[in-house]
Every structure is written in C-alpha cells, then in structure tokens.
C-alpha cells in the first residue's frame, strides 16, 4: 500500500509538526508577557501549558493513528498479553493470527525468538531471516519509517541544507513521552514558580550593598524558555538529517543555558550555566568533526533515502549498511564500501568508500557530542551544577529533554557506529554509572543525589546501547524519564514545602506533613532501584515497577555481552554492583527525607504539603513510573520501541576482523534473562536492605562508618576530585597560557594590528593621494599640455572634468598595453 503509506506518513508528519511548532508559537507569545501583561499575570503559564498540552494530544493522536493504520503490527504479541485493554489485546491476537496464517514461516520465527525456554545452541549465530529490510518486508506491512522534507533551505552545488522529518515508532514514543512529561512539568511549575508573580521579587541568596537583591519577577520569561526548550527537543527528535539535529542540539544547549542561569544574579547559577554550556561545547566539537567526516565521505546529511526525479538518493543508513544491517568491507578491511544508489556494477562510476578508521572517528565524534549532552564521563561535571536552575527545569533537563537528547541520538545514529565505537560507548557508560553512583551515596543535597543518580542512569543507557541492546538502552531512557521527572518534581515539592531547604540532614519525618509527595516519591524510588516481588505474579505479570524491567534488560544484555567477549567482564559486574548502590542511595534519600524523626524542628514545623497543581502531576507521573513498562520485554512499550530497531541488531554480530567483537543476539539475551534478572534483583534488594539498616531502622550509625572510611568519604564528597582535576589540568594551564597570550596579544599582536591598521589607513591615504595627486596630477599634466592649445575652452573649465575624460583614453590605452604584455 504505497499510497496509503504515503498518506499515513503525511498525516503523521502533520500531527507531529503541529506538536512541534506549538511550543514555538507559545514561546513567541510568552516572551512578550512582561511587556503585554503585568508581572502578576499567570497568562504566560496558561498559554505554555495549553501549547504543550495540545502538543501532547497531537503526539498521542499520531501514535494511536499510526498504530491503528498499521493494525498495531508493532505490538504483535509474542505470547498472550495479559493486562488491561482487553479489546486491544483481542485485536492484536487476531492480527497476529492473520499474520501467522499468511506467513507461517515468518511468524514462526518470531515465536522462536520470544520463547524463553528455547535452547540456544551458540551465541551470536544469526537467527535466520529476521526481516527488517523494507524491500523484503511482507506486502501488507507499512514501512517502518516515514521521511520527507518540509523545506529546502538552500542548495549550493551538492550541498543541500533542508528541514527534513523522519518518523518511526521511536520518534512517536519520544514525542509522546517528551510532551507528556513536559506538560506535567509545566503544570507543576505554575505552582513552583508562583513566587515570581510579583513586581518586587526578593532573592534571598543574593547579597547586595543594600541587603537582598530585589528584582521584578520573571514568571513569563520562565515559561517562555520552557516552551522554547520543548520546541527544541521536539525538533531534535523529529529531525530528518544530521544538520538539523545539530541545529536543534545547539538550541537545546542554549535553552538549558538560559534556564540553568535563570537566577542570573546568583554567581553560582551563572557559573553553572556557563559550565553546562562550555562542557557541551567540548562535546560538540567532536560532533562537528564527525559531521564533517560524514559529509565529506557520504555527501549527504539525510537519515532516510530521498527520491528525487525518480532517482533514489540513499540516506546515511542505507549507504553504510545493506538490508540485513551488514557493512561491506574491502578485501583488505581498511575501507568500507558505500552504496550511493547508483549501480556500481554497471560501471558508471566507482562506488564511494570511506576508510574504516575514519568511520570509527566519525562515530566517536558524534558520540563525543552525546557524551557532552548526556553528561557522561569525562564531561559529567556540569550536570550536578545544573541544579542551580529552578527545580522544574532540573526535572525537564534530567528526564525528557537535554540529557535524553544524547542517548536518543546515540540510538538514532546506531547504524553508523562500528563495533569499536560501541565498545567505547559501553565503557564510557560503565565508568559513568559506577562513578556517579558512588558520589550519590555521600551527597546530602536532595537535588544533588538525584543529579548523580541521573548521570548514573544515563550511564546504564549508554552501556545498554554499547553492548548491543538497542531496545534495552532506549527502553530505560523512556522509563527513566518518567520516574526521574517524578522524583525531581517530588523533591521540588519538598523544597517548596520546606521553603527552599535542600539539605537532607535538616529534613526527616516529612511524610506526615506531605504524604502525597512522600508516597509518590517512594514509587519513584522503588522504580529506579529496580525492585520487584519475585515469584508472585498478577495476570501473568511480575509485580514490578518500570525500572525493574528496563534495568533488567540492560543487565541481561551486558551479561550476554560479557559472556561473548570474556575480556570485557567488567561491563557486566559494574552495572550489577551499580544496581545495588543505586538502590542504596535512593532509599537513603527517601529515609533521610521522609522517615524517622524530624532533625530540624524549625523546618519541620513550617513544612506543608504542596498545592494541588503540584501534587496532581506527581500522582500522574507516579502512575506512569509504575506501569509504563508493564510486560517488560514483551510489553507494549518495548515492542513499540524495538519496531524501529536498526536492521541486524536482533541477530547480533559474530566476532570478525577488524574489530573482533561479538554482539549478542536477541535470542542469546533472552536465554540469560532470567538469570540476570535474579542477580540484579538480589543485589538491589541488598542495597535497599542496607539503606534500611543504616537510615531507616538506624541500627548502625552512618556517622561512625563515615569516620572509619574518612578518606574514602572525602574522596567521594569531593566528587572523585574531578572538578579539581579539571581545574588543574585545563583551567589553570589555560589561565597561564591565557596570560602569556594576553601579554603576547598586548605587546606583539596589538603592535602588529595597530601597525596594520595604521598601514591600512596609510594605504587609504595613499590611495586617495594616488587618486588626487598622481592620477589627477598626471591628468593635470596632460591637462596642462592641452591647456595651452585649448585656452578657448577655458571658460568651460570646471576643474577636473577634462582630466576625467582624458583618463578614459589613458585607461583604454593602459589596459591595451597590459593586454599586449600579457598576451605576448
């Protein structure tokens, strides 16, 4: 159904475009809120919520419409799906049955893969013809992705800069997730930011000569930036070419800069904003290099193929990989053959190639961008500082937008990564998740704990992607978005309720004062810790929140990967241990904040539950955090995501030259799933138990443990001395070099420049003198000669006119002479 498919693509793009542009429209209006309305008006917030809310409806509409049009082919259950939506499940079953009848072999293989009990003869053996290739797909299947062009900005020569869109199930899920989380955060922010609704806002954290700083409230500005942020993120997700990704990538960066530095008068906030921006620039430098390499060798920025005048111009993915997801190396293995759509065999011209090491470099470059944006080691230090922004911003940055962008791009760009790059990604993720988790254990600022936990969880995602679990990594991205935004908003609620106290040692026992916040937070804590009740199941489902399923998927993939590549065993143990630490510090946070006795009576007495506009988002988010991943890897969310999994990922990769790395196939992962799940659960439960012992039951005094491990504690408190390390390695040398440079600039370059400037002025003067003296002088001389003969014309003499005319002759003759010299 090509025409139907085109129609479907058009409808989807229309819906998502509306969803994408609405926040921009909102931004355009809200940014003038301060001029058009009063500082007390909440209008800007309502506009922002309306825009992002409508965008959410459009996204959901698009998702449902897509599913409906494709008969929910993506959701064909591997075995009976047991939860809710009975009608839907029935429809699925029917579709599956039809499908099976029409293509028995195909459906059979799917069942094979889904079957846990199926013994696996050997890891990494291709599981047969798992058909992902569009060309070979069954006739009635709609294409997996849709793409098109909104507008061609410009084309110079072969450079084509366009605004393209690319939609597959990943795009749809991301859109829905981003708009939903953003909507709730917008809503929450109406309450949280209400103290900005004034003409005279007093900022207690800024001291001026006359006491605290007083400034007008910035309610409208906040929502304007929030809208712009959403717009940028949605544009990034919708983008159909790398160039556009880069543009929105930077826009996301700029928006985070605005929002982190929202309290611009606070030195710490403006520093944090700078730090976030500069750290990201470091990563973006790599991104740009990758972009240039790709452009040089591939000659296109497009993801998807493009048909122009009946000729298919392949996009990046199809140039590099064939329908089964394989790259084609030259015999020596040093270059990768690219398919540019023309039939190379016909001998019209040679197929383009790219040296293998440059492909690796391009992949590393692009990933460097993701490292910056997703705060991975070694660029992780900006994220904790980004807590200086208002809490809703932290929630948005940490869940749905900024940091998600890096993981999303890694997923989107997956086909472009060689196994070496994937291994790098895995190790970076592994280091990050361990490092951040350890720091989170000792942090006492409630938001900082969450910040480090974000870094750690992002490490999990990167690790998952790196070890070949495309679906697992992105699965965790989505579930994490829900429970992390939930926890941030809950912490925001605590901070709001405690009048901007953020230190956990001053809290305690707050659950009595703010029960909704406490219990929604608990949902988030359980979700992120990955706890489940083993053995018992309801409706055939494990009793577990979303984090269990997604983390389980990652650990299982990592375990399989470590089995296949024995030297990289750390890639399994680190996330396993990390899971325990995660569980520990999250429960520590909850116990310290909500349980036990109040430690600061003053704070406790003034604490209060937040207004409904703040608690309702919490409740909604807690629902999602708990149930979004129901069914785990047979659940709807995971199936939806993996519908757009790049070809070949499911089959894994057999170790071969030049990388000698094997990637696990889906079958292999499934075989180890139960085992990995048990490991992870045991470790997580241990972590929770220890936290309970330390902070819940207070059987052991944490302070004593701290004293015993004082040096380790300091080491962690100081965040592994990373800030100091960077300060010593980069900042101070830069200062020294800068001093030299400034001296050099002052005494050498300025001298040269001043000289140049003087020279230029001098040349200009000469030029004028040349014009007035020599040219005119010459002509004057000629004029004087003619003067004698033409004294009658004296009356018509107007100064230089005759000289001008003479110069026509001089010019013609002059050029002629030059031509003669050159030509002969």
């Amino acid at each position, binding site marked *: 159904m090509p025409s139907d498919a085109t129609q479907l693509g058009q409808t989807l793009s229309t819906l998502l475009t509306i969803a994408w542009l609405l926040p921009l429209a909102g931004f355009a209006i809200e940014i003038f809120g301060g001029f058009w309305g009063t500082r007390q008006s909440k209008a800007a917030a309502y506009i922002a919520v309306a825009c992002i809310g409508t965008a959410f409806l459009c996204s959901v509409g698009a998702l449902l419409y897509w599913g409906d049009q494709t008969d929910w082919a993506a959701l064909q259950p591997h075995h009976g799906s047991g939860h809710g939506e009975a009608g839907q499940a029935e429809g699925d079953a029917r579709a599956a049955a039809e499908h099976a009848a029409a293509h028995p072999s195909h459906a059979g293989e799917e069942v094979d893969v889904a079957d846990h009990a199926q013994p696996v003869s050997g890891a990494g053996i291709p599981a047969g013809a798992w058909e992902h290739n569009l060309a070979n797909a069954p006739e009635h299947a709609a294409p997996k992705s849709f793409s098109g062009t909104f507008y061609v900005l410009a*084309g110079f*020569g072969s450079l084509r800069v366009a605004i393209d869109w690319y939609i597959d199930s990943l795009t749809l899920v991301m859109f829905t997730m981003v708009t939903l989380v953003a909507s709730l955060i917008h809503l929450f922010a109406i309450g949280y930011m209400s103290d900005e609704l004034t003409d005279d806002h007093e900022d207690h954290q800024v001291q001026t000569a006359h006491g605290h700083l007083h400034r007008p409230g910035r309610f409208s500005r906040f929502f304007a930036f929030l809208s712009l942020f959403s717009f940028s993120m949605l544009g990034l997700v919708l983008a159909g070419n790398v160039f556009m990704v880069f543009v929105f990538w930077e826009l996301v960066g700029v928006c985070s800069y605005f929002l982190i530095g929202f309290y611009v008068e606070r030195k710490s906030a403006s520093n944090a904003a700078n730090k976030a921006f500069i750290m990201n620039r470091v990563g973006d430098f790599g991104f740009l290099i990758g972009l240039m390499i790709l452009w040089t060798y591939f000659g296109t920025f497009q993801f998807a193929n493009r048909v122009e005048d009946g000729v298919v111009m392949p996009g990046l993915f199809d140039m590099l990989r064939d329908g089964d997801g394989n790259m084609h190396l030259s015999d020596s293995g040093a270059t990768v053959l690219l398919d540019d759509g023309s039939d190379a065999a016909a001998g019209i011209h040679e197929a383009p190639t790219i040296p293998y090491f440059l492909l690796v470099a391009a992949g590393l470059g692009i990933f460097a961008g993701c490292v910056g944006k997703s705060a991975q080691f070694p660029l992780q230090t900006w994220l904790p500082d980004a807590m200086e922004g208002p809490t809703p911003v932290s929630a948005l940055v940490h869940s749905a937008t900024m940091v998600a962008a890096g993981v999303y791009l890694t997923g989107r760009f997956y086909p472009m990564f060689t196994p070496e790059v994937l291994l790098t990604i895995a190790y970076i993720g592994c280091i990050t998740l361990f490092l951040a988790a350890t720091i989170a254990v000792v942090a006492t600022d409630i938001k900082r704990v969450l910040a480090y936990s974000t870094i750690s969880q992002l490490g999990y995602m990167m690790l998952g992607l790196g070890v070949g679990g495309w679906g697992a990594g992105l699965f965790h991205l989505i579930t994490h978005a829900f429970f992390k935004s939930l926890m941030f908003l809950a912490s925001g609620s605590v901070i709001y309720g405690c009048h901007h106290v953020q230190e956990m040692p001053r809290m305690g026992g707050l659950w009595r004062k703010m029960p909704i916040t406490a219990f929604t937070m608990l949902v988030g804590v359980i979700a992120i810790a990955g706890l489940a009740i083993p053995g018992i199941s309801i409706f055939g489902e494990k009793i577990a929140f979303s984090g269990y399923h997604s983390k389980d998927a990652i650990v299982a993939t990592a375990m399989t990967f470590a089995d296949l590549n024995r030297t990289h065993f750390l890639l399994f143990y680190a996330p396993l241990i990390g899971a325990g630490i995660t569980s520990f510090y999250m429960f520590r946070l909850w116990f310290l904040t909500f349980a036990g006795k109040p430690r600061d009576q003053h704070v406790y007495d003034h604490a209060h539950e937040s207004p409904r506009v703040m608690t309702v988002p919490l409740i909604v988010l807690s629902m999602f955090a708990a149930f979004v991943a129901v069914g785990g890897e047979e659940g709807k969310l995971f199936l939806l995501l993996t519908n757009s999994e790049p070809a070949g990922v499911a089959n894994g990769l057999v170790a071969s030259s030049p990388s000698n790395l094997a990637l696990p196939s889906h079958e292999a992962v499934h075989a180890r799933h139960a085992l990995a799940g048990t490991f992870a659960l045991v470790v997580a439960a241990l972590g929770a138990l220890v936290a309970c012992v330390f902070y819940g039951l207070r059987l052991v005094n944490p302070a004593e443990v701290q004293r015993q491990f004082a040096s380790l504690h300091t080491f962690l408190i100081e965040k592994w001395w990373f800030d100091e390390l960077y300060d010593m390695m980069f900042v101070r040398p830069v200062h020294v070099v800068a001093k030299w440079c400034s001296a050099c600039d002052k005494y050498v370059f300025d001298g040269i420049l001043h000289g140049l400037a003087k020279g230029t002025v001098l040349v200009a003067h000469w030029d004028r003198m040349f014009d007035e003296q020599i040219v005119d002088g010459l002509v004057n001389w000629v004029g004087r000669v003619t003067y004698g003969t033409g004294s009658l014309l004296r009356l018509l003499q107007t100064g230089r006119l005759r000289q*001008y005319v003479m110069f*026509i002759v001089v010019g*013609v003759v002059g050029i002629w002479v030059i031509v003669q010299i050159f*030509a002969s």
Partner: protein
Amino acid sequence: MNFAELIERLTENTQNSLPLFSPELCLVVTIVALLFVRLLGIDRHLPGSIVAIIGTVAGLALAALQWRDFHADDTVTSVPLFTGLLVYDPFTVFFRVFLLLFLLFVEYLTMISGIPDQEDAPDFYVLLLGSTLGMSLMVSANHLLMVFLAVEMTSVPSYAMVGFLKGRRLSSEASLKYVVYGAGAAGVMLYGISLLAGLLGTAHLPAMGAALVEFGRQHSSFGDPAVRTLAFGILMVLVGVAFKLSAFPFHFWCPDAFEGAPAEVGGFLSVASKGAAFALLVRFCLALVGKTAGDSPLSHLYLNVGVGLGVMAAVTTTFGNLAAYTQKNIKRLMAYSTIAHAGYMLMAVAAMMVILNAPAGDGTLVTARTASAVSCIQGLLYYLVVYFFMNLSVFAIVALVRNQTYSEEIADYAGLVKQSPLLAVCLLVSMFSLVGMPPMGGFVGKFMVFYGVLEAAQLHPVMWVVFVVGLLNTAFSLFYYLRVLRNVFISPLPEGARPVDVPLASDGGRYILFLTLPVLVLGIFVDPISGVARDVATWLFRG
C-alpha cells in the same frame, strides 16, 4: 524578394513582436501620457507621480505575466524580436521584472520624499521612465547597434536626472561631468562596435558568434593583426559597459555624480543601471563565447578576457573599499560602496568566462563546466536581487534623513538611534548585508559569487588571487560601514540636532521596513529566489 514581400515580412515580424514588447510599450505610452499631462495642465489635479506609478504597475503586470511563456520542456529557447534586434527569453523577462519593480520602488520613494516638486514632477518621471526604457532595451539587446542605442537611451535621461536639482551648483556640475564623461565612454564604445562590425561583417550578436568561429579558424594566434584588432574592439566595447558599471578605471564620474545627485537618483542609478549593465555584459560575453564550453578556436583570447575582467573586478573592489574610508559625505561613501559592489558582481562574470574558456585538458566534462557557469550567473542574479533591496534601503534612509536634517554628512548621523530607532535598525541591517554578514541576504549573494570564483580558481591561478582579494575586501568594507553605524548607534546625540522623526506608522517608516525585511528574508529563505535565478541562468545556456 521584391519590395512588397519585404514590407509584408517586416509587417508580420513587427506584429508578432509587439505583444512580447508590451512592457516597454506600456512605458512609452506612460511617457507620452506624462508629456500630455504637463502640456494640458492636468498635473495640477492629477500628480505626475500617480500617472507614472499607474504606468509602471501596468508594465510590471505585463512583464510578470510573461513568465508563463516559458516552460521547462520548450524546444524554443529564445524569440528574436524586430528581425533580431532584440531577443526575448527568460533572462529578458527576469530583468524586465527586476527593473520595473525597482522603478516602482523608486517612484514611491520620490513620492514620499517629494524630490521633484509638483511643478517638475512630470518632467522628472519622463526622465526616469525614459531611462528605465533604455535599460529594458539594454537587457534584451541582440544587436550591437541596439546595444549602443540602449546605452545612450539609458544615459541621456540619467544625465538630466543627476542635475535635476537645478538650483544647486554641485548638482549641475555633477551632471555636466557625467555628460562629458559619458560621451567620451560612448565614443570609445562606438569605435569598438564599428571595429567589431567591420571585422566580422555583422553586428547581430548570434551571427557574430558564428562569424567569430569562422574568424577563429583563419586567424588564431594573438600575433595576428586581425586578432589584435578584434581584441581591441572587444576591449573598447567593454569599456563602454565598464563605464556603466563604474568599474575601475572608468569610475571617475561616479562619486561626483552621486554626490551631486539627489539620493533617490543615486539609488536608482546604483541598482537599476548596474543591473542592466550586467545583463548586457553577460549577453555580450556569451555572444562571444557561444553557449557551450571550450569549443571555440578563440578560447585563449576569451580566457584572457575573463581573467582581465577578474583582475579588473579585484582592483575595482579594492579601490572602491579603500577610497570609501576617508569620505565624509554619506552619498559619496555609498558611491564608492557601489563601485566596490560592482567589483564583487563583476567577479561572477569573470568566473563564468574563465570556466567556459579554460583549456579542457583536465578532462572536466562540458556539462559540468556549463553547470558551474550556470551557478556563476545564478549567483550574480541573486546578488542583484539582494542588492536591489539593501542598497535602495540605504539610499532611501539617506533621502528621508536629508528631508528632516537637510544634511548628508556622516557626522550629522550621530545619535540617530535615539531619534528614529526604526531608521537606525534598518540602516544596520542593510549595511551589515552590504558587508555580507549572515543571516542577511548579502551574505548569501557573496557566498554564491565566491563559490563560482572558487570553481574558476581551480582552472586558472589568477582567479585564486581574485578570490582572496574578494574575501579580504569583505573585511575591508566592514570598517567604513561600521564607521557610519558607530555614529548612528554609539555617538551621543549632539545638542541642538535637528529632529528626525520617522515613526513606523508613517509612509516613510513603512516603506523602509518594507525594503529592509526582504534583506533578512533573502538571507534565510534562499531557495525560492535562488531557484528562479537558477532556472533563468540555465535557460541562458540552453540550445
């Protein structure tokens, strides 16, 4: 063929040509109407400007409708008009629309600024329309005789317009200088034309092309006196065009004429007359070369013409930019800026000539060569469209400020931003665009032209020099535009300065905004106009 047959054929030809000539006819009718308006004294009730605008709009509509005459799958690439004196193709139509639209803008500006008073208005518009008519002929000229006539038809009314402020001595002096200089240049050009016609036995451009191939077979080396004579002829025709372009060393009239003329006229001359001259130059160059790359026996001669134009372009740009440094009068400054921009645009033509005529030893395909040449012309056309808005915008601002402060000295622009933020911001946008900063349209224009020069540079080393000089000049030009902007934005408003009050809600304010917005739009939405330019340029090389 007897006489009656001849007459009949002529009649038929004329009848076929007239509809395609309708925009020009419309201008002619308007001119006659304006004369009658003056003669019968109607202009007291119906201002001349209204008549002129009505005529221009009608002409513009007719010209715009002619877009539809061309389809991509046509086999006919151009239609000769009036037995081949003129040619009708998309290039003609593009420039007609360009010129008439520009005329409309200038007419509206003169209405706002009131530079011809009620009494003189019909006279002024007769001159303005007459000059445009000449330009319109210039862009469609297909015969050297028409070339000369058109150039003169353009020039003579401009002379009068430059001296239109009769009471001012400076104005009259400028006009006289322009007349005499123009006459000199015309003489040189006419001599060149006579040499070419004499050598080749025809002055019809397509016939000339064919004759040149034959000529090249007989005389190919530069040592041959016949070839030297040919080269001299070409040189002298180019001198005539260079005068219209105000390219170095034939620019001397330009600063004086612009300083003396009202800003409105300056704006008109700088854009319209330059655009027409570039069209003529392209037509003349292509007539020499033929439409395909590198197959003429005289290629080496044309290559030298191309390189020569490139050097001339580089020198012109450098000269214009450097000489602008020390100017105190803004119109004089803009005159030098005009010279510099003529140099940038001339680079595109030079690049085209080099690309078409460089020795094909490196195996580059002819089609690829032609595609590069197309992109040069595309760049030139885009540059002209951007130049239309950014340059007229500056001149219009100068006119509006002059109406209120009675001054055109740069020093008197101090603190303009406090008096009229709108004018100041629009001046900033236009001037940054003139410098060539993104995201203004000027950047895209320069980018496209330099892209062409870069391709030419791979074929001839001298074009590297031209390329580098072009880039350097972009930096040079920053300084003098910034000097104006510094005055406008940073210098304090002197006490007792005459007020400049041009709010957005005035005719002038809206007009300036309307002129400046396209400068930004052209910098961001490149494809629509660059697509048109590409089509027009492609058509030029078809067949």
